[in-house]
């Protein structure tokens, strides 16, 4: 277990117009660990991760208060929003490769926008990142094909490669395997476990078994509140809060 904190969330609140979606959340995300975020639909999981990289504020009527300190610097205070999203990458439920771009161009799309790399450098980064997500051997002869031509699981790993190309320090994943078959899910889970050697990963999942398999820490949310945050083994073996127990044993509702 890591001792250092990568993200320190303090008194985080979020609203959608009048609806108080996230209520005074305090949590420390450790460096180079996988944190699973679980809870029933509508409990604030997605709002929580979207607040971390300031995507919440893109929604009309949405607002947030509190602090999210990345290595001690508040993403709401002292950082440029683009810098926040470069350092804190995001992978969504549905893979979203750019359909009009090749596989290789998809990986380096973000870097191209920055415009500081040569073609050779971009090709090297694309290869390196495709290797790190385990896609290189599968598609090295199809780099010029459209990203949309890949299977769902490959597309999701392509999106992770695209996020990794920006050298993020944290990756947020919002149900990244919900649309994938078991084999693709297994590959992505292996990738998540590997990623923590380099960065912190926060992953939302409705699959509690998946949370138990891949995470070091687990956060359980209910009605916008962080009910319990503990080592995954503790959460799944002997949770402290009866609400957590009821949720993970499937006795909710």
């Amino acid at each position: 277990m890591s001792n250092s904190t990568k993200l320190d969330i303090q008194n985080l609140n979020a609203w959608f117009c009048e609806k108080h979606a996230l209520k005074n959340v305090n949590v420390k995300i450790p460096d180079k660990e996988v944190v699973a975020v679980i809870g029933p639909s509508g409990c604030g999981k997605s709002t929580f991760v979207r607040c971390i990289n300031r995507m919440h504020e893109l929604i009309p009527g949405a607002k947030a208060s509190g602090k999210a300190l990345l290595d001690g610097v508040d993403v709401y205070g002292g950082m440029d929003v683009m810098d926040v999203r470069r350092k804190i990458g995001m992978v969504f439920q549905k893979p979203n490769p750019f359909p009009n771009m090749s596989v290789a161009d998809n990986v380096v799309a973000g870097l191209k926008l920055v415009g500081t790399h040569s073609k050779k450098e971009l090709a090297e980064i694309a290869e390196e990142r495709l290797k790190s997500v385990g896609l290189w051997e599968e598609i090295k002869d199809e780099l010029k094909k459209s990203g949309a031509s890949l299977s769902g699981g490959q597309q999701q790993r392509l999106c992770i490669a695209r996020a990794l190309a920006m050298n993020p320090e944290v990756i947020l994943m919002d149900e990244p395997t919900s649309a994938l078959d078991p084999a693709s899910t297994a590959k992505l889970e292996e990738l998540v476990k590997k990623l923590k050697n380099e960065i912190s990963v926060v992953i939302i999942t409705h699959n509690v078994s998946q949370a138990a398999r891949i995470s070091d820490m687990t956060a359980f949310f209910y009605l916008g509140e962080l009910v319990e945050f503990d080592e995954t083994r503790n959460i799944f073996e002997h949770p402290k809060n009866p609400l957590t127990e009821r949720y993970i044993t499937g006795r909710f509702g």
Partner: protein
Amino acid sequence: MLKEPEYLTKINAEIMEMQEIVESIGEQVQDALKNRSSGLKPVATELCREAQIREELIVEMCVGSLIRHQPFASDLRALTVAMKVSYDLSRVCRYLRNITEVLEEVNVKNCEVKEVCELLKNAREMVRQSLKAYFEKDQKAATNLIKSDESIDEGYRMILRKYAVQKASGNCILFNGITARIVERMADHACYISQETIYLVTGRRTDYR
């Protein structure tokens, strides 16, 4: 308390069946010991075999439930505990059968067996109470049962002390020493069941011994 899932109810029903087998062997061994009679070994062996089959069935049901239901928290603990309890009961069966083997091998017609009879009676009661605490998820009763093991240990030591100095015939010394040791181990398994019960209820493992 959360309602027990159906698969756990079925598994516990099998554990109750195992308990009945253990009780049946226990009663017969108690009588054989009191009467210093041999000849029970084939029956005990057969009953032990039945208990072993049930243990294997319980493990199979637990593994199947782990795969099908992927339980967590108290449900997960209940399955791991059920497997261990069935193992402990199987061991208790084998210890009881061991007593019938000793009765078979050692001539005890003229031996004093009162203390060892009492020790066995108390150990059987411990097994019964440990299972009651398990089925009722009674942490306090399980904790008390572990504490009561001291009286079995003391009874065992007392028998050893007595026969270490007594000028009884060799076979009586041998019989009482071996049987007391078997019974003492049997009571240990009652304690293990209680330890598992405490883990089942609290989620914490503590070595109470």
